């Protein structure tokens, strides 16, 4: 297990593609790991304290990582626990393993995630599990659980996997979704625009688009794309 702790408050955001692979390296190697501090490339050890405790493939990010981006990018296994907030693009293109965020998550959580699990104890911002700019497919597998609220544009172009939001979600949930499940325990705005498939379950209130047919299964649509997605309440 590797514990990484910020040494100071950062002047600008940091980009650090920290994955559990780091826990397999020596502390010296980890300290030399390159991170981007604005336009300066610096060694991780300059900005963070690094402590190693045991050999398990686990990263503990101890402190506020709300301004550290790309944590857990492309990770395939192991675990990351973020004790505070986490910055944008956390868990991007993730294929396996587990990320637990004890605070809040910034935008673009789990971009095009294909496997693994992300749990956010606080709130998440926008674009959870979406397709990155210009790409055709969003999340395809794995599970994202937000215990608080989530922002707008959740699960756009989703083609598999599961997103659970225990609180409220914002607008435009599951737009152009093709497969997979989104479950919202609270309320949300527009749901399922141009949805082709998959299922969205909502406990609270939501804005239904005028392009869904009421059936026994729930609301089916979006008729504009001859979709067979299902929206239902629970």
């Amino acid at each position, binding site marked *: 297990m590797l514990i990484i702790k910020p040494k100071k408050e950062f002047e600008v955001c940091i980009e650090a593609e920290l994955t559990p692979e780091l826990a397999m390296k020596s502390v010296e190697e980890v300290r030399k790991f390159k991170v981007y501090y604005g336009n300066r490339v610096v060694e991780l050890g300059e900005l963070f304290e690094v402590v190693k405790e045991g050999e398990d493939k686990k990263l503990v990010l101890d402190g506020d990582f709300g301004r550290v981006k790309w944590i857990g990018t492309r990770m395939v296994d192991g675990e990351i626990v973020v004790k505070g907030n986490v910055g944008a693009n956390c868990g991007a293109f993730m294929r396996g393993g587990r990320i637990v965020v004890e605070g809040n998550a910034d935008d673009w959580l789990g971009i095009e995630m294909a496997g693994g699990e992300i749990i956010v104890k606080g709130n998440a911002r926008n674009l959870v599990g979406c397709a990155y700019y210009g*790409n055709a497919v969003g999340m395809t597998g794995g599970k994202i659980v937000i215990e608080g609220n989530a922002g707008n544009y959740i699960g756009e172009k989703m083609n598999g996997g599961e997103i659970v939001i225990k609180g409220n979600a914002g607008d435009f949930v599951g737009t152009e979704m093709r497969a997979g499940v989104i479950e919202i325990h609270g309320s949300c705005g527009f749901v399922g625009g141009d949805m082709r498939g998959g299922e969205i379950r909502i406990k609270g209130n939501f804005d239904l688009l005028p392009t869904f047919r009421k059936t026994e299964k729930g609301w089916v649509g979006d008729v504009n794309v001859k979709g067979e997605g299902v929206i239902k309440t629970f």
Partner: protein
Amino acid sequence: MLWIKNGIVVDPKNKINAEKMDIFVKNGKIVAESDVKKEDCKIIDASGKLVVAGGVDMHAHIAGSKINTGRTMRPEEMRVVRNIAGKFRATLGRVLLTAPAIGYEYAKMGYTTSFEAAQPPIGALHTHEELDSIPMIDKGALPVFGNWHLVFKCIEEKNLEKLKALVAWAIERTKGFGVKVVNPGGVEAWMYGGNVKSLDDQVPGFNVTPREIITWLIRANEELGLPHSVHLHCNNLGVPGNYQTTIESIKLANGFRNPKRQVLHVTHVQFNAYAGSSWRDAASGAAEIAKVVNSMDNVTIDMGAAIFGHATAMTGDAPFQFSLHKLIGARWSNKDTEVETGAGIVPIGYLPSNPVHSLQWAIGLELGLLVDSNKVVLTTDYPNGGPFTEYPYVMAMLMSKKMREGELKKVHQYVQKTTTLPSIDTEKTLYEVIHMTRSLPAKVLGLENKGHLGVGADADIAIYNLNPLETDFSNEFEKVYKSFKTAEYTIKGGEIITKNGELVKEVFGKTFWVDARKKVDLEVIMPDIKEYFNYYSVQLGNYGVEERWLKNPSRLEVV
């Protein structure tokens, strides 16, 4: 001054075929040995290396609103990093490249000239701004004429003097190089949601046909004596069965003659060489087209080869782009442009597992192999058929049947019975392929100082780590491909700009434009132009591009 020593020179224009010789460069030009002081020359040892003229791309979409819209709508194309900012510019792009990337990548490959193949006249300044931002290479742009109301009017009136004056005026105003025609009449029909389907369809609202548009523009072009011929993107592009329209269009050159060059260049013919009646029974019409082209001595074509992988369809052929969007369901941009022209953009890709894509791939190669090497230029119609950076793939394929056999195994077997590719034994020689990428495109464009290494030519030179005397082109295709991907040296205007794929020096080349105003009386057309400007959204006085706005203009005056 440069002294390129002991290279193996292939220079088809000057009938030099793999001869060991020295090349001398002074003031940006190739000069005779006696013109240089050898002790002042920087010597490049080219022993055992191939020395050829810099490549000339006569048809690519490298600048202007189309490619820039493509970049904007496809950020996923821009995520391949080619160069990090430092001494040189940062460059990006998978197939669609940024302007600096276009210049750098051409240069690395040994290409030193490229022409933007479709410039909307009202957007000419934008095209030139982008051309000015492309480093390393010489450039030019071809304004489009085939759907311009003013052109229709001159033809309706059967007034050749007016048409000539219009062409001369427009080429000057756009700082363009020649006459491009895209789906003549079809783009105007698109303004009503339609297209034209044959050479004799009437253009909506006008008493003209595609046949007349092409013929009259050839006539005007030839009477003006422009360096380049009419450059035609045929009707029915992308439609199964279109090879017949293409053949009919090619035959419109009959009766015209120019001692220096072709009178009609038909472009990216791969997209216009389909037999069959739908995509279900589509087949190649390349062999038939090749027969016709080979039988004529006044027509040239370029391949428009398709490369497997990503591409972006971008043409002035707006109705075709919409059909493509409907067919594949991809994003679609369109631009109806005043009363001049239109354009469209759709992302595409070519997959070897797809029968149609494999057919397109095969047809491009068939054209390159079946058409006389003196009549077919190597292009991919960048970025429509794929990246220009894969020209070496096409070069190697043309020279090696063995390579083609290997590639044929990887593609959809639909091509086995629908094309002649599997049965073609021809292997083009290096001499022919160098011609198809250098001296021929230069000749087709009418650029006398490009594409060869004779005294007086521009010192645009590529040196490849490939000894033609010791290379078995049939069998060593991988080496051939690799050698042509990265020039050992690229020399532009006498300066070394890249070495082994590394950038050495950033230079900015010339933009060629043609001035034929002395050949006409502009006053015969000005009243019509003034009247038509009631239907423009800009003032006549604000239309066009002044020479002093360009970074490095080079005027070719037609007298």
